Structure formats: structure tokens, C-alpha cells
């Protein structure tokens, strides 16, 4: 049963990885990576790493991939034009050599435990309780450094991606805060309430409300709102 699950998850993970590299549209690449990550979480569960699997699904497939989808939608990563140089063949050849080398190293290793099924399973292995205890006792310093690194990365992303003044004209903001005014605003004719209705013939004067009596034309009225 575990062998069947392993092969399903492994084929899913490798197919997702190949899909990330081969698909031309970057949006489909992101979706393929989500498939890869979920399959990898299944592999983690088979290795009895429950907390890592849950963190993988929640943090990676949930949060980080949403960030990717937003950026792909913002940048509009369309179809990629294939490279015209000869490096296009060299890359896969190097990767194939790397894969062969890693597999040779794995098969020729002197590690005895690699062909076994691992250490005997103790109840409680890989639970959040044990991981948390390790994080707060033995690995406290890496934990704190990781939190500091997250803070630095968040500040760096804000500094990198913020809207800089002078880089681009803020026409939208200008238009929102200083709307273009009609030519009669601020003139004495407006103060008298006389001329602006002739200047803008399309504009209809609102009927005087019954509470406020109609003012005589010579009396100055406030600014037209």
C-alpha cells in the first residue's frame, strides 16, 4: 500500500516539476508547481513528517503560490519566445549529467541505512510537539535568525516594490486630489451667482428647495458644491 502511494506521489511530483520547466505560459507553470508541492506533501506524510507536510501545504501551496499568482497577473507573464542560441541544448545536457552523477553517487554510496526502511517508528515522531520542543531548545538560535531573516525580507520587498516619487508621473493621484475646476470658479461673477449658468449651457440649475427661500440675485451665495 505504501509503495503504491509512494509511486503515485513521486510521479506526481516529477510530473509537476517537468511541467514547471516545460510549460510556456508562466501562469500554468505556477499551477504545475502547486501540483508538485501537494505531491511532495504526500511524500512527507509517507516519511512520517506530519508537521512539515502540513506546513508545506499551508505555507507553500497556500500563501507563497498566491503571491506568485498575483505577481504573474500583475506583470502579465505571457508566452516566452524560445532562445535562439546554442545554449538551449547545453542546459538540458548539463542537467542530465547532474542527474546521472547524483544517481551514481546514491547507488554507490556506503551508507547502510539507505536501503532499509529507516529507523523504527516511535509514536510521536514528527508531531508539532516534538518539532516545537526542538525549535525552542536545541535549535533556538536558527529559529531566531530565521525570524530576523523574515523581517529583513519583508522590509526589503517593501523597499524594492514601493512606488517611488519621480519614477513615474502620479497623474491619477493629481487628478483625484486636484480636480480640474471650471473657469468661472473664484470669479466675482460666481460670487454674484450670475454668469456661470450661461457659460455652461448643459448644466441645469437645481430647483430651489422648499426650506430655503429663493435668494435675490444680488446676494452673494457660497461656492457651488
Amino acid at each position, binding site marked *: 500500500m505504501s509503495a503504491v502511494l*509512494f509511486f503515485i506521489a513521486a510521479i506526481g*511530483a*516529477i510530473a509537476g*516539476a*517537468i511541467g*514547471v*520547466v516545460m510549460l510556456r505560459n*508562466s501562469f500554468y507553470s505556477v499551477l504545475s*508547481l502547486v501540483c*508538485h508541492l501537494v505531491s*511532495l506533501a504526500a*511524500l512527507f506524510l509517507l*516519511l*512520517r*513528517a506530519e508537521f*512539515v507536510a502540513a506546513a*508545506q501545504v499551508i*505555507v*507553500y501551496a497556500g*500563501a*507563497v503560490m498566491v*503571491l*506568485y499568482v498575483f*505577481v504573474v497577473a500583475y*506583470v502579465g*507573464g505571457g508566452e*516566452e519566445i524560445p532562445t535562439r542560441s546554442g545554449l*538551449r541544448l547545453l*542546459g*538540458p545536457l548539463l*542537467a*542530465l549529467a*547532474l*542527474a546521472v552523477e*547524483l*544517481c551514481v553517487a*546514491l547507488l554507490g554510496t556506503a551508507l547502510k*541505512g*539507505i*536501503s*532499509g*526502511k*529507516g*529507523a523504527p517508528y516511535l509514536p510521536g*515522531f514528527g508531531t508539532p510537539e516534538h*518539532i516545537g520542543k526542538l*525549535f525552542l531548545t*536545541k*535549535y533556538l538560535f*536558527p529559529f531566531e535568525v530565521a525570524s530576523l*531573516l*523574515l523581517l529583513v*525580507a*519583508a522590509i*526589503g*520587498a517593501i523597499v*524594492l*516594490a514601493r512606488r517611488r516619487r519621480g*519614477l*513615474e508621473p502620479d497623474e491619477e493621484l493629481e487628478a483625484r486630489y486636484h480636480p480640474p475646476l471650471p473657469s468661472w470658479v473664484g470669479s466675482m461673477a460666481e460670487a454674484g451667482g450670475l454668469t456661470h449658468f450661461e457659460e455652461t449651457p448643459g448644466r441645469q440649475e437645481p430647483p430651489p428647495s422648499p426650506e430655503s427661500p429663493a435668494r435675490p440675485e444680488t446676494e452673494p451665495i457660497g461656492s457651488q458644491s
Partner: protein
Amino acid sequence: MAIGWYLVVSALIFSIGAAGVLVRRSPLVILLCLELMLNAANLALVAFSRMWGGEDGQVFALIVMVIAACEVTVGLGLIVAMHRRQLPIDVDDLRELQG
């Protein structure tokens, strides 16, 4: 399943990610392929943790996930800044970084 199978899967995923970094030209997809390589390292760490019966490998897998999240944040910020300056989103066209 023997632990060696997990390591073989990890090696294959790492090689596919390396191929993607070498072949693709969009920085978005290169970041995705970096994620693939980090995930392959994670799988190897968790497999070794199962092999030894200690949780230290899982702790380091979680820290690698934190590093990957930081890398994604800064990388996507760079891509958004490139898009704002209307630079081409293509690593072959951005030759000024070559020095």
C-alpha cells in the same frame, strides 16, 4: 519503501530544477525552478531524518522553507520593480548586471 527511492526522487527533482534555471529566461519561472531545487533538498532532509529516527532534519526542512519564502519575497519584489521601470522581464535582455 526504502529510503534510497526518496533520495532518487529528490535527485531527479533537483536536476529538473537546475535544467529549468539554465533553460528558461523569464525570472518568474527561474524563481519557480529555484523553489523546485529547494524542495528537492527538503525531501532529502526529511528522508535522512526518517533514516536516523531524529527530527533534526525536519527542523532544517522548516528552516529551508523560511529561506525559500524570503527568497520569493525579495525576488518577486525585484520583478515588480522591473515591471514598474518597464524593463524587459527577460534575463537575457538584462545584460547590465553582467558587469
